[in-house]
């Protein structure tokens, strides 16, 4: 391609943009949406799709006239899978870029790193990711699934199908530790026993000894709560050592699409509860997948967090339009009405006013020997009930804290 042609294309692209902006949104200033997601580093494989999903939703909304006639403008930073970058960029988007809302975070460590900054500067953030649950903070909306949605469904199913001895292999940070606590609690409630537990530091990639520890404990199935690409090496190594135990997880497949990355049958008999993966065979899901692939043809996988991020943009649009304002207090008044719902690619979802978390359709995905996905069970409309039941009610009081089963909200 010659220089002049390139220049011509540039010019065409520029005028195209100009026509669009001047035509549709002449007088209105944009609504700014900060996007802090990991586009490089250890978590990038699972999170680049979230940024793309936000871009997709933003383009659709802007093409259809924006939010209350105002265009949506993205302010995107690459947080590099690094917690301190989250803190820097969260300060930057809130103080310098003055965004109206921030979509931020993959790992729970990063969320807890930036959450105090959102609280301090009185910001408004969406965490579009499944996690260990328990964040009761009026400055946050969580669109991802939580343990009562993922584990209360998955663990009893696994115990009925395979037996009551459970081994947990979890990443050694707040997500893994608190999720393991949930697994312990649910196993106990269902009359099972923990055959063992091991916590793996992030970044560890060699699992020979852990594999042997599992074989020694002889569990009926293994709960794998491994995070990051280094830890995903476990599956290949366990398969080559012929561990041959069923696995259950709230994070695999739905985030890191391990069934696409590893050679079959290393993920055989992996069961995952997820609110979305691209294999879901419904018209809504297929439509979303087709739109995604049309815009990002080389996207390796459309995962759960991509869908959470996509629907979050539309939820935000709906709330702003109903509140007729981008102010957090006005938006929370809309949430308090309890009917902020939408038809998402996964099915119908609603925001729970007490916890500002979201109800989900939970799909049990099973990985076959050839790494094909089947769905033995689907739970519709599972509510994020735990926080509300435990005593968190954001419509009355905003403690800005994270709770766990062993550290519930204080009783009034």
């Amino acid at each position, binding site marked *: 391609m010659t220089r002049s042609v390139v220049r011509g294309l540039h010019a065409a692209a520029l005028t195209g943009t100009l026509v669009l902006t001047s035509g549709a949104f002449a007088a209105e200033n944009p609504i700014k949406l900060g996007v802090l997601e990991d586009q490089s580093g250890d978590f990038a494989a699972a999170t680049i799709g979230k940024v793309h999903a936000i871009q997709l939703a933003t383009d659709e909304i802007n093409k259809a006239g924006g939010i209350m006639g105002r265009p949506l403008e993205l302010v995107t930073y690459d947080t590099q899978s690094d917690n301190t970058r989250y803190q820097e960029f969260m300060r930057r988007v809130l103080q310098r870029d003055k965004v109206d809302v921030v979509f931020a975070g993959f790992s729970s460590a990063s969320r807890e790193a930036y959450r105090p900054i959102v609280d301090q500067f009185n910001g408004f953030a969406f965490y579009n990711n499944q996690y260990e649950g328990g964040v009761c903070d009026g400055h946050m909306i969580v669109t991802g699934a939580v343990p009562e949605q993922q584990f209360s469904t998955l663990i009893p199913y696994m115990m009925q199908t395979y037996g009551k001895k459970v081994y947990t292999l979890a990443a050694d940070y707040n997500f893994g530790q608190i999720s393991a606590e949930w697994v312990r609690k649910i196993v106990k409630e269902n009359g099972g026993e923990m055959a063992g537990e091991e916590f793996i530091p992030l970044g560890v990639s060699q699992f020979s000894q852990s594999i042997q520890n599992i074989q020694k404990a002889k569990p009926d199935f293994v709960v794998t709560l491994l995070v990051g690409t280094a830890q995903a090496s476990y599956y290949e190594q366990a398969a080559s050592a012929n561990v041959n135990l069923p696995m259950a997880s709230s994070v695999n497949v739905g985030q890191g699409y391990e069934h*696409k990355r590893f050679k079959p049958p290393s993920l055989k008999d992996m069961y995952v509860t997820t609110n979305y993966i691209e294999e879901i065979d419904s018209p809504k899901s297929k439509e979303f997948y087709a739109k995604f692939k049309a815009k990002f043809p080389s996207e390796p996988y459309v995962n759960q967090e991509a869908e959470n991020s996509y629907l979050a943009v539309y939820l935000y649009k709906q709330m702003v339009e109903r509140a007729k304002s981008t102010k957090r207090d006005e938006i929370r008044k809309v949430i308090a009405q309890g009917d902020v719902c939408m038809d998402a690619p996964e099915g119908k979802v609603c925001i729970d006013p007490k916890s500002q978390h979201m109800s989900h359709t939970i799909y049990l995905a099973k990985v076959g020997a050839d790494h094909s996905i089947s769905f033995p069970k689907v739970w519709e409309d599972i509510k994020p009930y735990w926080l509300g039941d435990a005593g968190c009610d954001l419509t009355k009081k905003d403690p800005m804290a994270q709770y766990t089963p062993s550290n519930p909200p204080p009783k009034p």
Partner: protein
Amino acid sequence: MDIATLAFSALYQFGDAFAFLVLSACGLAVIFGMMGVINLAHGEFIMCGAYVTAATVHAGLPLPLGILCGTLVAALVGVLVELLVIRHLYDRPLDTIVATWGLSLIATQGTLILVGSTMAGVGTPFGSFQVGAYSYSVYRIVLFLAALAVLGALYALFNWTRFGVLARATIQVPHMAAALGVDTRLIYSLTFACGAGLAGLAGGLYAPTMTLVPTMGATFIMEAFVTVVIGGADVFLGTAPAGGVLAVVKSAMTSWQGQLFGQIGLLIAVIIVVRVLPKGISGFVLRERT
């Protein structure tokens, strides 16, 4: 559980940890231990070897040939890096830190942009075998044997071949070697390429067992550096015993208290060895001899 099963499992875990430490460290032992270049891009040479191996296996080559390709490509990249960057920094060892760190960032981000966030794995060959109650991966034994073979080959290369003698002479007293007619620039290049190739070999050997991502080199680098630091300057006399000592500590601690304590034990062992033997294990061994 009988003694034989326990003994085998302890031996297997030791061999596994030993192979990982030695294979991660060999390339760095040449580049950092011998040549004194603090190569923070070591992990990226490993990643390069792993990616090339996986790509060639996907293209239809058998795994051993793929690993060979990975090794050679990493060595070639090593030659280029030496020519363009490292060559100009031999008398500024601290600057090599910045230069190689920059290279590692460029390599990681460049791979992410060009190849994408992940690459499909190739699957571990050879299957598994059973001893007592445990089943083990055959490939892990292959890795252990490969580590021994690499150590043997390095010993032979640096002690028995003309290149080895020239390389050691060049690195110990460069101007004297040059005065005797040795092309020291070429020797430096070849030695660096040898180190980079060894890193590529480690990547190729571990490629079937790991997630292939641009940041995969980072999981090797801590083990590689501590092994070389406590091993000292001699590639064979340093890396082999250092790998042995650390593997015993790491596998014992991991089997006793899990991965976290394995890592803690590893670092405590390193601190103790560096405190007691400031010149590393090979410095200690060589002083005893003379």
